[in-house]
């Protein structure tokens, strides 16, 4: 069988999805930092907002890779 997932940090991910997710996250996070007015703490706040948006985008864009099974009663 083709092995299409990898297990990282206790859960399974697809390598391609992970790389795209990291790219989107870094883009919005660091992008927020760079477009913010250079008055601390604004750059940090902008990049935090960017990171949260990226988290939501990634969660909508990618499907989780877990498999569920309801346990039988013993």
């Amino acid at each position, binding site marked *: *069988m*083709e*092995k*299409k*997932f*990898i*297990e*990282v*940090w*206790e*859960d*399974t*991910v*697809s*390598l391609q*999805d*992970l790389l795209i*997710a*990291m790219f*989107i*996250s*870094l883009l919005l*996070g*660091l992008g927020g*930092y760079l477009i913010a007015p250079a008055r*601390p*703490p604004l*750059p*940090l*706040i902008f*990049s*935090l907002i960017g*990171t*949260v948006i*990226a*988290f939501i985008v*990634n*969660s909508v864009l*990618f*499907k*989780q*890779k*877990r*498999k*569920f*099974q*309801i*346990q*039988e*009663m*013993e």
Partner: protein
Amino acid sequence: MDFMLLIQLILAAVAGAVVYTLIGVAPGTDETAVLAPVTLAIVLAGVNPMVVLCFFMSAIVAKKLTDSIPVAVAGIPGGVMAAPMVEHAVQLKALGLADSSIRKMASGSVIGTLVAVPLSLLLARALIPLGPVISKHAGIIFFFGAIFLALMAKEKIISLISILPFGILIIALRHFYWGIGVVPRERTPFISFFLAITIGPMIYNLLEVAVSSKRREMERAEGKLIELAPDQPVTGRVPNPFKILNSQERVSSILGSILGTATFFMSPVGMTIFIGEIFSSRIKDTAKKAAVAISTMDAITNATYIAGVLIPLIALGVPLSPMALGPANPLFNAPPVLTLENNLHHILSFANISFATIVGALIALAITYPITIKYSRPICLFVFRRIPHESLLAMFFTLVMILAFMDAGLVGMIGVILLAMVAGMINRWGVNYGVQFMILYAAPWMINTFFAR
């Protein structure tokens, strides 16, 4: 009390409770890795110290309540601190008692919090005279702290061997940043070093994907199998947390919390296993034994956590507990906003700290306890089904990169990866967070005393 401040405290507590109720459920979310970067960002964003503390207390109480949910429902720890409970919770799940085990753990959590908050405040007051002595000799104390934690660790020898080389790596990188001029001499870069240790195990694991032989070992044909306990919906009113436990479970939870508070300077995971097994080992019946173990352990984790933050914060002003070195570290040291000479210990009075803590803890209990009892299964399913692991990994990675960029620019982002490689590797070998953070604090004293000319 300023009315606006009170509103801010309440909002911070609600935000902390809601966010960490969800994060607590997500599998593999290490407390240090998910709490420290967020707290650090909030401190650096210039939020009022009382509001930060209130957020933090609410977040840990909520996270400790919910990280036991996936343990009970799926046998997967929602955090490092929930790991000791897995074995017992899996036994209860196999007996079809998953919902009873959630209630018992939640109840243990509530008891642990309610015992630890007042007890820690009292103990901290008693230790206040020690504060000035300890902070005056902080360097040498951190050094002996590193040796002490190394000797308490499972892997004693490699932990001891790591102290000097890891200390040298930290100081070398600092001097490199100063040398090439990315950080001015008068500022000591700290945040990126702290984050590198925090996120080390995760980065190390991510980098292993780039090693072809390692990647083959990590490849899976199917997604991680999550075995869920059968659905047993909770109906009616939310039960009183004090009536869920029988008298034996209640007594051992309370005693466990007291011991956990008194041993605030020890490793929380270590104490949880140690005390929890003492209370449960004499019981023969499997189900009874498991129930005592999980309720007591959940109480102890809460107590060691709360005491580990409050006692050093109130009495000492330097992070001298694994908890204060780890997740709560940004409350002690987040330059340029907070430093070891000017942190929450110095800025806030005893009354301020107590008030922010109590507001945070009570709001988290009031929000998260009923949710945990009534909606544990839907929350667990929501997180498992809707939150891909990719977006969690990407978010924490980005958070670290941004903060590293702020600390030391582009080269700081590479520096974090370098340090995380080493920190992650020695972490894998058994040099735990406590030892590594002690080395981070002890490094300047060590290098000056032993090697500088």
